[in-house]
């Protein structure tokens, strides 16, 4: 065991002594912190050509409004207030109510969190017809529409309806900007994380071939099985460490900006059409857990690919090509199975629409959600990939030199 840990230590040293690894980690952490802190908060806000405020101030105002309204029930009282606010703004504007223009900012802006929630439900009736009944009816209608568009089976729809019935309506609005911001950033966090792993991990295996130390290590007693396990472990630990750093770079600035209240806010506050009975804190933990599992899979696949291709540049090219492909390709919903598989790939999965998708995984008469099924698949794939890589590594033949 001591020998194994010793090898792990040396492999870690070899990895961290590469300047590129430290630079990549540092730069990506800095970029992530800056992006989370300033992303969407730079710039100025103009209405009809006139400078109103800055994006940062607007964001702050919205957060303060949200805190003030926290704890309010999204019921008839709320809709009545909204109707009254629109009526007053309409009288003052004497015509079209322009977003962020003076009447809007005076009457409607203080209730902006409610307005945004109603927009998320997708209610498109005139404001006079807005009430609790139509609002929640519209929510159900939108849910059923989405399920049909996603080509869900009757069994899945029944299951989701059952989940929906467990929810208590009307919902209570709670301030959870920090959690919402983190969930919005998760896809970007995943993107930066896979970039880090793509750049840093290939060298664990390709370095031995490019430096021609493979001949020295493969002839030693522990140079095959034991060293392979040590290298894989180092890659896995590095992947998880990178995931932790990136998560911290997303979570900490978000909490510093918006505070950490809202752990117990229901998921429906940011996603009204969601049927899952969970809080924002639980959703964040699911996201984080999935990010770690994704990092594990990506790390192992990167290492195995690097042992197969033997060249770091080739590995990076293949993986980066996949990343770009992931960003550009969208499988239409009508190809249900293909779309579901594609949505389970790493960069598609770590996003709100990927994790909390309505599509379920049926198995032996039960339905499993994405966040339940996909980690298991990822872990299995990781184990299989590691095994395949071991055969490749131990079977390597030194020739052509």
């Amino acid at each position, binding site marked *: 065991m001591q020998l194994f840990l010793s090898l792990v230590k040396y492999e870690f040293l070899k990895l961290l002594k590469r300047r590129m690894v430290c630079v*990549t980690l540092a730069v990506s952490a800095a*970029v992530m912190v800056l*992006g989370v802190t300033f992303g969407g908060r730079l710039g100025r806000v103009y209405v009809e050509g006139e400078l109103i405020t800055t994006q940062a101030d607007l964001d702050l105002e919205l957060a303060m409004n949200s805190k003030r309204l926290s704890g309010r029930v999204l019921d008839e009282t709320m809709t009545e207030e909204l109707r009254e606010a629109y009526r007053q703004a309409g009288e003052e504007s004497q015509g079209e109510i322009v977003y962020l223009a003076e009447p809007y900012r005076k009457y409607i802006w203080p209730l902006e969190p409610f307005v945004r929630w109603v927009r998320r439900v997708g209610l498109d009736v005139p404001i006079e017809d807005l009430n609790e009944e139509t609002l929640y009816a519209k929510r159900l209608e939108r849910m059923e529409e989405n399920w049909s568009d996603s080509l869900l089976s009757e069994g899945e729809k029944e299951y989701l309806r059952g989940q929906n019935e467990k929810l208590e309506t009307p919902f209570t609005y709670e301030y959870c900007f920090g959690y919402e911001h983190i969930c919005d950033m998760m896809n970007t966090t995943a*993107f930066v994380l896979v970039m880090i792993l793509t750049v840093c991990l290939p060298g664990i295996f390709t370095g031995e071939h490019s430096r021609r130390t493979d001949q020295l290590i493969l002839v030693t007693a522990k140079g095959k099985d034991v060293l392979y396990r040590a290298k894989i472990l180092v890659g896995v630990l590095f992947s998880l460490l990178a995931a932790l750093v990136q998560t911290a770079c997303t979570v900490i600035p978000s909490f510093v900006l918006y505070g950490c209240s809202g752990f117990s806010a229901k998921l429906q506050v940011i996603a009204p059409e969601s049927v899952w009975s969970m809080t924002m804190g639980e959703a964040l933990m699911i996201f984080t857990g999935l990010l770690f599992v994704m990092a594990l899979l990506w790390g192992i696949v990167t290492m195995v690919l690097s042992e197969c291709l033997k060249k770091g540049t080739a590995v990076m090219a293949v993986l980066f090509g996949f990343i770009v492909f992931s960003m550009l390709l969208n499988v239409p919903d009508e190809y249900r199975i293909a779309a579901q598989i594609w949505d389970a790939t790493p960069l598609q999965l770590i996003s709100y629409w990927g994790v909390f998708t309505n599509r379920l995984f049926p198995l032996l008469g039960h339905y499993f959600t994405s966040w339940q099924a996909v980690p298991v698949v990822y872990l299995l794939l990781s184990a299989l990939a590691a095994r395949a890589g071991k055969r490749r590594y131990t079977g390597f033949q030194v020739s052509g030199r």
Partner: protein
Amino acid sequence: MKEKSEVIHALKQAFEPPEPERKRSFLRTLPRGRISSFSFMAAQAGYIRKWVWALSFLLLGAAFAGAVCMKKETLWLVSGMLPFAAMAAVTENFRSLIYGMGELEMASRFSFRSVVLARMGILGAGHISLFVILIPVICFFSTYTLLQTGVYLLVPYLLTTVSCLWITRKIGSRDAMYACTGAAICVSGLTFFIRMMMASLLQIQYLSGWIGVLAILAALSLREGKKVIRQAV
């Protein structure tokens, strides 16, 4: 005539010429054909690897395809790919250093400096032509001005150039290829990152800042290029 040639042939067969003496020193006195600088440069063009040119054509293809399919987002697709063109150009320019040929080239008539300058000239001309086509084509389909388009394309290109030159200078071995690819991926990722998360930085009021960054990167590229050449010679 036939008899004459037969006699000559017979004499050649019968007569055994003496062994040459001091052949090498005699041959050295004869004037040798030398290639011109232009011929040297043209010859260097043949040694530039095909994939470097293929990448440039791929970029062009991506720009035109993107213009048809992606319209406004073509700018970001191409600016995400340009770091790889920059990496290819830098690693090609300094291939001698990276693969250990530097010492041989430094000792030859057309020295390492000439080789590098020739390659820089050829690849530079190629990439300038690429930009001359890309910028107006992409500008046509995007919502940005010509100046903005040029800046948003050149900044990732030059950032990668500076990074790769620095890496080549510091590492200067085969590891430099790996590190340069990593740098290109990081810059490419940064481009997508800015597009996704900091789109407000692309507003017109920040254009002067971008131009400033571009100027700094251009100066740094020149400086790093000179340093690499000076270090090797």
